[in-house]
């Protein structure tokens, strides 16, 4: 057992840190929260691409550096801690590339991965529908074959980053073959595709609906081949569930809060001397350190060769657990921050607070999504109970536990 980062890894971390601190000094970006989702900067992405800091775990065969998942952990830990605007390439890095590596054709990999590594692809994944979550039997978005093409009709909703994405991966059921779910690469400018921003309760532009009306796609738009959606989509979960994005996204606000309590005063003393506040902040730090270890464990397991197809400790235990914990941790951070800033929390933009703290009210509202987005936490908890503890499925209590993975779910 060894928790030490190697000398090379420490050097890498310092290199990333030095770069980010210089960028901040030069004013090329201002640290902000949830930067993996909302920090959009093609210019910053270009600099990351130039340094080879996109898709660093990708095999050299496709132009990647084939670095370890722990190295990737280090990279994104520094990025998120500094609130760096990575969203432009984040989805392509952590979702498109893994999707293509696990399920794409060789030609799709050769065409798209180098572009993704250069930061040229903005990407989103569209699965959820108004009436369907991860239970694919509820899908209404469907496709038919027309000559060598596909035509898709349907509606997707709650899609992160669809507003910026040039390519959207859309899952749909076959209109003719039962229980056949395919995954398509759709260009934003495809005729019949409409992306509408959802008016989110916090006011952030984070989610969209994606409407497909007779969207015609060439035969090679289907990722890997027909019917491969379920075995391909799993590629996103190590990050979607087990990544640092779920525990480190509010690090800038956290730092600002720690500073705030030392400066703000009540009853003639700084807030930082209030034992109740000290205790809550200690709890936040504990949640953060444990969440960090959960994400590190995922990276460690990936480096040990976890292929994420069963049996996979990443998919059954480590990533779902990380997501459930992260949702609570980030919500607790924002609830506590609201309590601490007191009356200033009434404003959606409290100019007397430091930049990463002043929108705490809006972040608090956004945080209601953290236990819902990516997979609702109660669903993940049931998954953990079935796959890790072997508890019987509620719908089919007499079936052996791994029958659960055979049902049509994403």
């Amino acid at each position, binding site marked *: *057992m*060894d*928790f*030490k*980062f*190697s000398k090379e*890894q420490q050097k890498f971390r310092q290199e990333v840190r030095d770069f980010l601190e210089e960028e901040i000094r030069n004013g090329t970006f201002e640290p902000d929260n949830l930067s993996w989702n909302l920090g959009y900067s093609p210019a910053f992405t270009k600099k990351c691409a130039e340094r080879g800091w996109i898709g660093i775990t990708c095999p050299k065969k496709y132009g990647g550096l084939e670095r370890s998942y*722990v190295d990737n952990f280090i990279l994104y830990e520094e990025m998120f801690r500094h609130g760096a605007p990575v969203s432009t390439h984040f989805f392509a890095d952590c979702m498109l590339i893994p999707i293509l590596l696990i399920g794409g054709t060789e030609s799709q990999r050769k065409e798209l991965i180098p572009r993704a590594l250069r930061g040229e692809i903005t990407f989103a994944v569209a699965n959820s529908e108004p009436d369907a979550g991860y239970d694919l039997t509820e899908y209404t978005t469907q496709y038919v074959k027309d000559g060598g093409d596909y035509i898709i009709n349907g509606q997707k909703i709650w899609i992160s980053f669809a507003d910026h994405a040039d390519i959207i991966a859309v899952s749909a059921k076959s209109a003719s073959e039962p229980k056949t779910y395919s995954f398509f690469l759709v260009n934003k400018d495809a005729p019949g595709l409409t992306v509408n921003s959802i008016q989110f309760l916090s006011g952030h532009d984070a989610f969209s609906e994606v409407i497909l009306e007779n969207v015609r796609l060439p035969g090679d738009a289907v990722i890997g081949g027909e019917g491969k959606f379920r075995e391909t989509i799993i590629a996103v979960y190590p990050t979607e569930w087990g990544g640092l994005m779920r525990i480190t996204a509010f690090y800038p606000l956290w730092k600002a809060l*720690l500073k705030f*309590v*030392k400066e703000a005063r009540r009853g003639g003393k700084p807030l*930082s001397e209030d*034992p109740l506040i*000290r*205790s809550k*902040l*200690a*709890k936040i*730090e*504990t949640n953060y*350190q*444990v969440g960090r*270890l*959960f994400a*590190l*464990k995922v990276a*460690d397991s990936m*480096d*040990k060769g976890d292929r994420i197809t069963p049996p996979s400790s990443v998919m059954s*235990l480590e990533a779902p*657990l990380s997501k*459930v*914990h992260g949702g609570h941790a980030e919500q607790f951070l924002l609830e506590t921050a609201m309590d601490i800033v007191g009356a200033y929390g009434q404003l959606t933009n409290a100019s007397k607070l430091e930049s990463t703290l002043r929108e705490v009210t809006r972040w608090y509202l956004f945080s209601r999504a953290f236990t819902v987005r990516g997979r609702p936490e*109660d669903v993940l*908890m*049931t998954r*953990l*109970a*079935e796959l*890790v*503890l*072997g*508890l*019987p*499925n*509620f719908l089919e*209590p*007499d079936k052996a536990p791994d029958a659960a993975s055979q049902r049509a779910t994403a």
Partner: protein
Amino acid sequence: MDLANSEFQEMLRTSARDFLDEQCPITVIREMAEKNNDHSPELWKEVSKLGWTGLVIPEEYQGGGNGFVELSLLLEEMGRACFTGPFFSTTVFGALPVIDLGTDAQKGKYLPEIAGGSSIFTLALVESIDIHDANSINVSAHAVDNNGYEINGVKLMVPYADIADYLLCVARTDDRAGAEDGITLFIVDAKSQGISHKSSRNISDKKLSEVTFERVKVPTENILGERDKGWIEVQKMLGRAALANCFEMLGAMQRMLDMTVQYIKGRKRFGRPIGSFQTAQHYCTRMLIGIQGARLSCSLAAWQLSEGLPATKEIAVAKTWTNEAGEEVIRLSHQLNGSIGLCMEHDLPFFTKRVKEGHMTYGSTDYYREAIARELGL
């Protein structure tokens, strides 16, 4: 970076589990409890033969030369088995402090004895409700001649006082200094003239004694570490004890979850296993998350100690998380095991008591949260 056990560590763990499953099943623990017995010399002999009493002792003193990580793996298995005996106190309040602070003569005398299983150590520290309060240390040690001290006062909650060979006694040698100065560690022969005990039982039916020191003579050479500078060593010892104890809790917590899952898979209501109901499943998942977080945070702290790195924050994070996770495991496992789980004929209460004992010993959640707050620079 490698979060899995090494081959040696894994072998240590599995051989410990095999031994404990065979020699220390819950029936043995139950028998000991029925006889009010918290030490089995036969079991202790076996445990020494396995090298456990010498696990962390350097090889030059007949030990295994292992670190805190190896110790933690053993403690987790012992917690899982509800092991009853002075292993924890001898290792944490005997071996580790002597290794840290002992003179060559002291190491040469005590460490081989501990490794061989012939010396049992315990800690005489507590005098008030707060083990971390230096103000509460009033047991005094006055120099009485050129080569000795006399200890007077009463210590509380001393485990294994009646079977220990040595009491590591925390006494005040200078009462003109501030509360945290003037405190010294003494290795006191437990059979010294003037020592008397009055015992009570703790939540796990372990004997804890009120130990009275009446003009107890201790030679100067039995001071461990520097005279008057013992309090900081006590703090270090308590931090290690808290972490070590977290591993015992962890083993017990895992056992409680395993028992619960087993039970709800089989127990049927309305024609289906109660483990198919989502509330029951979510209770189990909450316990699982707590246990996994405890395992990782405790392992990190143990590794820091093994590497000789500072671990104040890591220990505090591990302790607060394990405390809260432990409390939740107690609550939810009892919820799911129903009425039968509340009866002593069931195994669950043995583990409940151990987990709660761990929770309340060596520092509260509030204390360690405050330690984290200080580490955050607040």
